[in-house]
């Protein structure tokens, strides 16, 4: 039996869509983990990336740090946070935030750093203060790349939030972990399908967001190049 029909069979049963273990309830939990982790990671990574890109300093160490950071195993951070916090229910937050920070920080840095020097000169020549140049020119021009970093991070967090179920939390990971524990591969396949669909939706959401917030001129340029 193909994997898709396997997952579909489970997902098409009505009682799998109701109650605290139903798909909608698990979706909300999964989104909750993703959104909270993304907001915290963005609050840390965006200012640092913008500042370093603006000043052009520290970028060379950033690559080294990003590389070491990426090697931190998510599962290890999860169980460590869980044990050290004495089984706190927020332990899932640490690995997910740690996972999301490097892509956001590196793309933001690269985006702001890559803004054409002529543009900044022109903005300064028009009488903009350094702060205005940063927020009215550099950040908007870097926005496509910043969004790309946020999107990559969000997709990784959606896919990885499944491990929160390992420390007895909810989300779609619940299906995967429970299915694994009871040798119910149909449940696992259904959980995986939910995560993939959610990841695709996140991808589309960011494409839509890009249409809304990136200036029309920049989008036209991107199409032509």
């Amino acid at each position, binding site marked *: 039996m193909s994997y898709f029909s396997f997952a579909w069979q489970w997902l098409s049963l009505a009682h799998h869509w109701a109650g605290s273990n139903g798909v909608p309830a698990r979706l909300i939990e999964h989104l909750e983990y993703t959104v909270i982790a993304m907001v915290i990671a963005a609050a840390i990574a965006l200012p640092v990336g913008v500042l370093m890109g603006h000043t052009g300093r520290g970028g060379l160490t950033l690559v080294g740090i990003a590389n070491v950071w990426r090697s931190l195993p998510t599962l290890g951070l999860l169980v460590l946070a869980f044990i050290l916090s004495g089984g706190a229910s927020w332990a899932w937050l640490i690995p997910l935030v740690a996972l999301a920070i490097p892509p956001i920080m590196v793309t933001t840095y690269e985006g702001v750093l890559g803004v054409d020097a002529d543009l900044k000169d022109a903005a300064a020549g028009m009488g903009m203060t350094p702060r205005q140049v940063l927020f009215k020119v550099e950040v908007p021009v870097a926005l496509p790349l910043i969004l790309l*970093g946020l999107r990559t991070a969000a997709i990784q967090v959606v896919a990885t939030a499944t491990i929160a179920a390992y420390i007895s939390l909810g989300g779609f990971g619940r299906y995967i972990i429970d299915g694994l524990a009871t040798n119910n591969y149909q449940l696992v396949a259904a959980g*995986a399908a939910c995560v993939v669909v959610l990841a695709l939706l996140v*991808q589309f959401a960011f494409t839509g967001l890009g249409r809304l917030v990136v200036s029309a001129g920049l989008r036209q340029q991107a199409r032509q190049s």
Partner: protein
Amino acid sequence: MSWAINNASMLAHLTGQNAYLALVPVLVGLVVSLPLGVLCVRFGWLYPPVLGLISVLYALPGLALFVVLIAYTGLTDTTVMIPLGVYSLAAIFPSVVDGLRSVPEPVRQAAVAMGFGTWRRLVTVELPIAVPVVIAGLRVSAVSSISLVSVGGLIGIGGLGYLFIDGEQRDFATEIVVGIILIVILSLVTDTVLVLVRRALTPWQRGRGRLNRRADMRADLPILPAGMQMP
């Protein structure tokens, strides 16, 4: 610390297993990426659809892939290596394309003018010039792969990930910390080896560290969707 010393032989075994499970898929990813990348550079229209497909594969959750694959492969090393190979492909393939595209047009024309055929030009001129960018992609994928193996611990095949599962069950933080440290060390060693390989393969670039860092930075960028290529 004494726990690590008492269990040194087990730790060495797990580290070796972790390296094997992580790096074989990276090599496979590289071997698949090279011809695929060459094709996509030659036939430009292929690139956006192939890239789109690969970025969808990249979004698949590792744990779910592991578990779903059990139904097909049983509980073997392959179960863990297939998803890692897919992720490696997703990280390496764009860097092969970027690397080949970074070959300056005058260089290509000079090779043509010297009478190099398509194959000879590819092997002796274009691929060597692409090496720094390809290695940057390899570094990202090798490091991610080493750290991702540990998720396989949840299905019993996870190299150092075993320490996380065991440590959690025994409520023993030292074991988890040792596992994290060993994974970071393994990543750093692998990363250093790749940097040395790049130096050996690109003797003309010595003393141009800054430029190489730029190439590394590029590889850190996520996969770009069609129509949103970097300006």
